[in-house]
Every structure is written in structure tokens, then in C-alpha cells.
């Protein structure tokens, strides 16, 4: 009996079988609630109502209304990613290299953890209460400085307003990701550069930025994906008056999807494609960046 057991392939021995039972629920779960739903969407994007292969659905993405929705989404995600990276880097640099008191650094990192998770509906409410028509800052500016934001054409329910709101979770995410990278910049590199006569700008241009750029670009890609997938914030802030890609998809699923589910598939597929590319860029650049941080 023992010889038979020993000659069986390793995976079939009783102990191994039991271990397989341990991981089986995970794979079953992932298949049913992650892989199959996504595959269904991806395959649906390439099939017509009769189940034949087609590129027609993807062609419908070029319709002006859909194309402009994607375009606004991409602009919004790119703008908030770039600004989020820039301001996040400034704050991260200030708390790591700027000689600020240590408790302040820890407080800012903790707050970043909270703020990067404070997305969605409540965040939209906070911005309406602040920069809405009767918002706190709007009123403050009018009463104290005589500045009429809304008279000047500002509206929180707009591209600009949405971008301002998204930055509230984009900047902290950047701070959280880039702070370790900045802390990985060794003091010796700066000292070596200075002993060779480099000034601050030269050090940044020739030493620090070449080391940091994979992290920076990678995080840019991550922030792009982060903004692109955000739906709840946009819906709570604008209703559906600003049509960005996820809101169009939301409306499709809610109502029109029965008329043309395949257009919904195509929009969803394009969204997966964009966020997948952005995430792949992030992972590749992250691996590159880790060469230096060891």
C-alpha cells in the first residue's frame, strides 16, 4: 500500500489532496465572481446579438457621444494624475527632505492613508459643502474678499470641479507611494554629488530624478487608473450631467442596456483595456524602480 502511495504523482497523495481542498474555495470563488464575469464582458464585446464574432460593437465606440465621453475621462484622469503626482511629490519631498519635525511627517502620512480612502459619495458632499453655490469657501471668498466664484464662471459641477475633487484622493495616494522612494535616496549620493561640485539643481537633474523617474511614471500610471475607475464620486457630484466613460456605462447598465447590451460590453471592455495598460505600466516601472531601492 505504501509503495503505491509513494509511486503516485506528488499532487495525488492524500496530504496534497487535502491541501488542494484548502485552496479550492479560493479558485472557485475567483472563477465565479472575478474571471467569468470579466470574461463574459470581454467576449461579449466581440460578439453580436446572435453570438457571432464581430468588431461592430467596438466600432460603436467611435460614435461622437461615446468618443467624447472617453476623451473627457482620459483628460480628467490624465490631468488629475499629473497634478496629483506633482503636488504629491512636493508634499512628500517637504516631509522627507525638507527638515520638518518628525511628528508632522507621521501625521501627514496617517492623514494620507485616510484621505486616499475617503473617496466616493462623502467626498463629493464635502466638496459641495465647500465649493458649492452656498459652500463654505464660496461664501468666505464673497464676504471677506468680495470674490464671486460663481460669477466668475466657476461651478463645482464641472470638469474643473471634478478634477479638484479627484485630487483629494490622488495627491495622498502619491504621497503614500512616493515617500518610501524618496526615503530610498541615499544621503551619500547627495554628498558625493556635492563633493564633485554639483549644486542642488544639478543633483536633482542628474542623480535624484534619474533614480526616481520609474517610480514617478509608474505612480502616474497608477493614479490614471485610479481616477479612471472612480464612479461614485462623479455620480454624487454631478448627477449625470457630465458624461465621462464610467457614468455612460452606469447609465447603460441601469437603463439602455436592454436595448443594446453589446455597446455596454464594448464600453466596459475599453475601460478594462485602459486600466489594464495603466496598471501594467505601473508594475513594469515599479520593478525597474526597485533595482535602486535595496
Amino acid at each position, binding site marked *: 500500500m505504501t509503495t503505491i502511495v509513494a509511486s503516485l504523482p506528488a499532487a495525488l497523495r492524500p496530504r*496534497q489532496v487535502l*491541501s488542494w481542498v*484548502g*485552496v479550492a*474555495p*479560493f479558485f472557485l*470563488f475567483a472563477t*465565479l*465572481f*472575478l*474571471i467569468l*464575469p*470579466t470574461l*463574459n*464582458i470581454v467576449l*461579449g464585446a466581440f460578439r453580436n446579438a446572435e453570438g457571432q464574432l464581430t468588431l461592430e460593437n467596438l466600432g460603436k465606440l467611435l460614435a461622437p457621444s461615446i468618443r467624447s465621453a472617453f476623451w473627457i475621462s482620459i483628460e480628467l484622469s490624465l490631468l488629475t494624475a499629473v497634478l496629483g503626482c506633482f*503636488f504629491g511629490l*512636493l*508634499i512628500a*519631498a*517637504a*516631509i522627507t*527632505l*525638507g*527638515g*520638518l519635525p518628525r511628528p508632522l511627517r507621521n501625521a501627514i502620512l*496617517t492623514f494620507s*492613508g*485616510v484621505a486616499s*480612502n*475617503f473617496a*466616493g*459619495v*462623502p*467626498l463629493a*458632499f*464635502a*466638496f*459641495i*459643502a*465647500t465649493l458649492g453655490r452656498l459652500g*463654505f*469657501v464660496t461664501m468666505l471668498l464673497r464676504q471677506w474678499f468680495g470674490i464671486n466664484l460663481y460669477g466668475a464662471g466657476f461651478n463645482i459641477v464641472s470638469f474643473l470641479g471634478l478634477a479638484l475633487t479627484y485630487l483629494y484622493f490622488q*495627491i*495622498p495616494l502619491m504621497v503614500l507611494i512616493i515617500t518610501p522612494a524618496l526615503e530610498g535616496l541615499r544621503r551619500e549620493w547627495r554628498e558625493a554629488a556635492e563633493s564633485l561640485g554639483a549644486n542642488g539643481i544639478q543633483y536633482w537633474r542628474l542623480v535624484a530624478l534619474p533614480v526616481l523617474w520609474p517610480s514617478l511614471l509608474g505612480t502616474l500610471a497608477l493614479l490614471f*487608473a485610479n481616477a479612471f475607475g472612480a*464612479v*461614485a464620486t462623479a*455620480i*454624487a457630484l454631478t448627477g449625470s450631467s457630465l458624461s465621462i466613460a*464610467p457614468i455612460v*456605462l*452606469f447609465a447603460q*447598465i*441601469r437603463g439602455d442596456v436592454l436595448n443594446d447590451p453589446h455597446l455596454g460590453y464594448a464600453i*466596459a471592455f475599453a475601460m*478594462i483595456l485602459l*486600466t*489594464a495598460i495603466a*496598471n501594467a505600466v505601473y508594475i513594469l516601472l515599479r520593478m525597474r524602480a526597485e533595482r535602486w531601492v535595496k
Partner: protein
Amino acid sequence: MTERRLWSWLAVVLGGLYFLLPLVGMFDFSLRMQRDGYGFEAYRVVLADPQFQQTFGYSVALALVTIVLGILIVVPTAYFVRLRFPSLRPIVEFLTLLPLVIPPIVIVFGYIRIYNTSSVLPLTGSWWGTNLLILFGYATLSLPYMYRSVDTGLRTIDVGSLTEAAQSLGAGWARILAVVVLPNVFVSVLSGAFLTFAIVIGEYVFAALLNVGSFGPYMVWMGGNRAYEPSALAVVAFAITWACMGLIQLVTRFSKFSTVRR
């Protein structure tokens, strides 16, 4: 040096203004419901609203069940992958990261297409089915956080020796997982759990598209129909996020102390 410090202070102060003003604005707005000055009227109205109690209670319950389900799925998987199937590791890691890559709205769209009333498994057709589906959906969303924190926790203990010791004392797998592994990674499980709680409690897209009466859709409805209550709700939601993140820091710090003592 002093010049650099000056610039740093400027960056932090300007950043602080941007991040604190919306919080101040939301709190200020939530206090203005009374005509005769500041007060907690909006909170009183919200807390007394039966709809609030119902949806909030539902979301809390859903979050707790999601956490339990997440633990049941993730802890055995992470344990066996570490102990027996190191080769599966990249696959499992990839799968657990997918919910961060695929936008949630796409995942729920897939659910609606696969599990609708005319499918093999018509989950959206019944009350139980819909609740199960949103539970599985939230467990899916929590996978990245749960798996990473549990796996980090497992890294700090010697899984192999602990397992052999438990086996030599006659423990079976279920017992090893529940009595040996889980207590050892409990702190990591807790961080994953708090993060999951913070995400699930105000989630909107899944709930709205699956037609579930949870806290997220309730907040959006309030946002469209009331003036001051939404701000009070935002303050409550912000406090919950703060509490969850604070608790994560607290348990992590606690675990650091306990490992030092050992």
C-alpha cells in the same frame, strides 16, 4: 538649509489648506440646519431617520459578513500556498490584484449579465440571491487588501514548524488553521478587515446597480433631495474612515510591541 525648510513649510501649509478646507466646509455646513445659528440639528434628523438606521445597519452587517467570508477564503489559501504550493503564488497574487485593475463597475456589470434571472444561476432574481451576490462582490473587492495583509502576516511566522508541531500533537487541518495560524496572523487579518469595512460601508456602484438598499445609495439619494443632511452623513462617513485607519495603526503598533517582547 533654512530656505529649504521655508519652502517645505509653504508646501505643507498650502497642502494643509487644500485638505482641511473641505473638512471644515463639510462640518460647517452640517451645523447650519437651524435658522438661529449653529447646532447639531442635521445630525439629529439623520440619526432619527428610519431609512438611515435601516440602510446603515444593513451596510454594517454586510461589511461584517464580508470580512468573515474574506477571512474564510483568504487565510486557508494564503496558508496552503505558503506551505505546499509556492509555485501557485504568482497566480494567486495576480488574481487577488485583479479587483484593483478591473474597475468595479465592470465587475458588477459582469455579475448582472451572468447571474440575471434568465441564467443558470439566477441570483439577481431573489432577495437572498441578491444579498449573496453583493456579499461575494464585496469579498472580491476586499481580496487585494485581505490577501496582502494576511500574506505579510504569514511571512513573519514559521508556518512549517508551527504546522509540524501542531500535527505531531494530533491536530487536523481545520484545527491548525483556526487555533494555530489564525491567532498568529490575527493582527494582519484585522488591518485587512478594517480596510474592508471602510470600503464596504459607503460603497455605491455595486449597491446601486444590484438594487440593494445600503448606505451608499441612501447617501446619494439624500444628496439629491436634502441640503444639510448630506454634510452630516459625510462627517459620519469620514469619522468611520478615520476610525478604521486609526485602528489599523493601533493594532499594527500593538503587534510591533508584542513581537519585540517575544
